[in-house]
């Protein structure tokens, strides 16, 4: 059953980077400590406005992700609030030690936009489609990791990132995503949003996968299977209480992500379940494979992360429920 703050039907589809830019245009003007940093990356509306009107608060370091992240740390040490922008694959890949050692180690107030993450940056192919970022970033201490599901949530996360004093990373998928939430939906850092209520199983999804999980909910509802859907927008700190409650209330869990199930959201949920309250878990996501070029729908099929795959996973995990 959909919660009241979920749009039915879903609202306009929009890329989340656009929504972020709408939020940032406002935040940037209100807080003069914000500095926008780019690694040869499209600036979007906020960045372009800032470049024109506040040029000394915008810097592009070129195709140099390590320098990008560490310069941000230096700016934070000097009292600024830097937001870095580059492809997520290269921030995590080429600047992993910098995130860990220059930002997280001393808890600098740096906000790292990880753009175009996940398998569904469809055309770009395996070198660019991240499978590793949730796994790799979860394990870094002092880091808050966000994963917005829709444009409205993206704006709340931009504000939350600014409000939090300390390192933040935000993984943002490339494609346009439907607007799931009303503007007033309940958002709290570290607390999963209940998208739908149900007793038969729980789907815990993150990012662009939430919309597909919602489709799966609708498919299952037609077969009288009613699932709770949780939007895990904060991957670190994880809402362990919501996971445990889901196991207790519904007895079966399916996780969904557009990146690797090894150590990603699926791994994280499995850790919580194993230590706290056993229930069967099925992880939907990328199964230890690299990506490839294709269309979004083709890739969802090939990598088994479509709504029908999610629905099938729910049915499979229900079969394993304790009698």
């Amino acid at each position: 059953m959909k919660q009241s703050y979920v749009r039915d039907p879903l609202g306009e589809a929009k890329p989340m980077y656009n929504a972020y830019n709408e939020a940032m245009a406002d935040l940037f003007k209100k807080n003069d400590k914000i500095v926008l940093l780019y690694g040869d990356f499209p600036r979007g509306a906020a960045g372009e406005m800032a470049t024109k009107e506040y040029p000394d608060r915008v810097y592009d370091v070129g195709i140099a992700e390590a320098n990008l992240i560490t310069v941000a740390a230096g700016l934070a040490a000097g009292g600024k609030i830097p937001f870095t922008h580059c492809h997520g694959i290269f921030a995590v890949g080429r600047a992993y030690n910098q995130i860990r050692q220059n930002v997280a180690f001393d808890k600098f107030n740096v906000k790292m936009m990880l753009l175009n993450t996940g398998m569904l940056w469809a055309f770009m192919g395996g070198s660019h489609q991240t499978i590793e970022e949730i796994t790799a970033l979860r394990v870094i201490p002092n880091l808050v990791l966000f994963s917005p599901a829709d444009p409205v949530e993206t704006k709340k996360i931009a504000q939350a990132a600014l409000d939090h004093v300390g390192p933040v990373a935000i993984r943002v998928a490339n494609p346009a995503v439907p607007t799931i939430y009303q503007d007033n939906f309940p958002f709290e850092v570290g607390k999963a949003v209940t998208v739908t209520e149900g007793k038969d199983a729980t789907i815990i999804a993150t990012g662009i996968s939430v919309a597909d999980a919602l489709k799966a909910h609708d498919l299952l509802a037609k077969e009288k299977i009613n699932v709770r859907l949780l939007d895990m927008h904060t991957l670190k700190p994880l809402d362990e209480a919501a996971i445990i409650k889901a196991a207790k209330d519904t007895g079966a869990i399916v996780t969904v992500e557009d990146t690797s199930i090894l150590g990603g959201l699926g791994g994280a949920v499995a850790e919580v379940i194993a230590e706290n309250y056993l229930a069967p878990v099925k992880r939907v996501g990328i199964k230890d494979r690299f990506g490839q070029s294709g269309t979004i729908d083709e890739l969802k099929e090939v990598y088994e992360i479509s709504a029908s795959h999610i629905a099938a996973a729910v049915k499979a995990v229900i079969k394993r429920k304790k009698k």
Partner: protein
Amino acid sequence: MVYQAELLNDLQNKAKTIRRESIRMIKAAGLGWVGGSFSQADIVTALVFHHMKHNPKDPKWADRDRLIVSKAHCCETVYAALGEAGYFSKAEFDKYGKLGAILQAHTERTAPGVEYSGGSLGQGLSFALGEALSARIGAPKDVNGRPIPRFRVFCILGDGECNEGQVWEAVMAAAHYKVDNLVAIVDHNKYQSGGKVVDRIDWTPVAPKFAAFNWDTVEVDGHDFNQILSVLERADKTPGKPHAIIANTIKCKGVPSLENKNVHFCAITDEIYQDAMKALA
């Protein structure tokens, strides 16, 4: 520029003091990076005790000059200088590298006066660049419309450290943005941990590489205070480019029996200790 004998003597004595204290520190800890600590000791002395604008009683003063020691394993002379300057009690020296110490094996911001948590080489110049940029944002402008930076940033790099590609990412960006309140000092002691720089990866001569990237570049004898103070002052008066000072130094300078040997990370035996204390008296 020729400086007063009194000033030069004072700096030479301070440099000896921090070397002696470093030897004691390393002996107490068991091991340390005596080679690279000692090659940079005169540069550190000139910065901490003369050139930099800072206040040990107010380590978080927003407009203080920053010293970023990117070659953060060479921590002992940095700690000795900061302790001597009054950033923390000299009782901390004996705790260097021990559990719970503010003086960790690589410089960390846990110690008052330390600006940069290092250990992963090649990153400090980027960090220094970020700090230098923060000093320019919102600063009042001069007659040419260029910002008057609130503070300067000094970054000591190792010559081996410059193998790391990120160093050159920072070099390119600093030149592009004409960050003239950033001074990089390469402690060119000709060795890195595995051996001679020219044997490991020979990218010498060093100075032309920085000049090619549009940095204002000079070379000095890194143990001659006259030269060191001269080029630091010159950097202040040379706008429009970041500054590279290539300091030709001797690894382990100050302990003749160890000088110019690749003493990178070692224990201070009783023999070395006595020899060093005699040389640094």
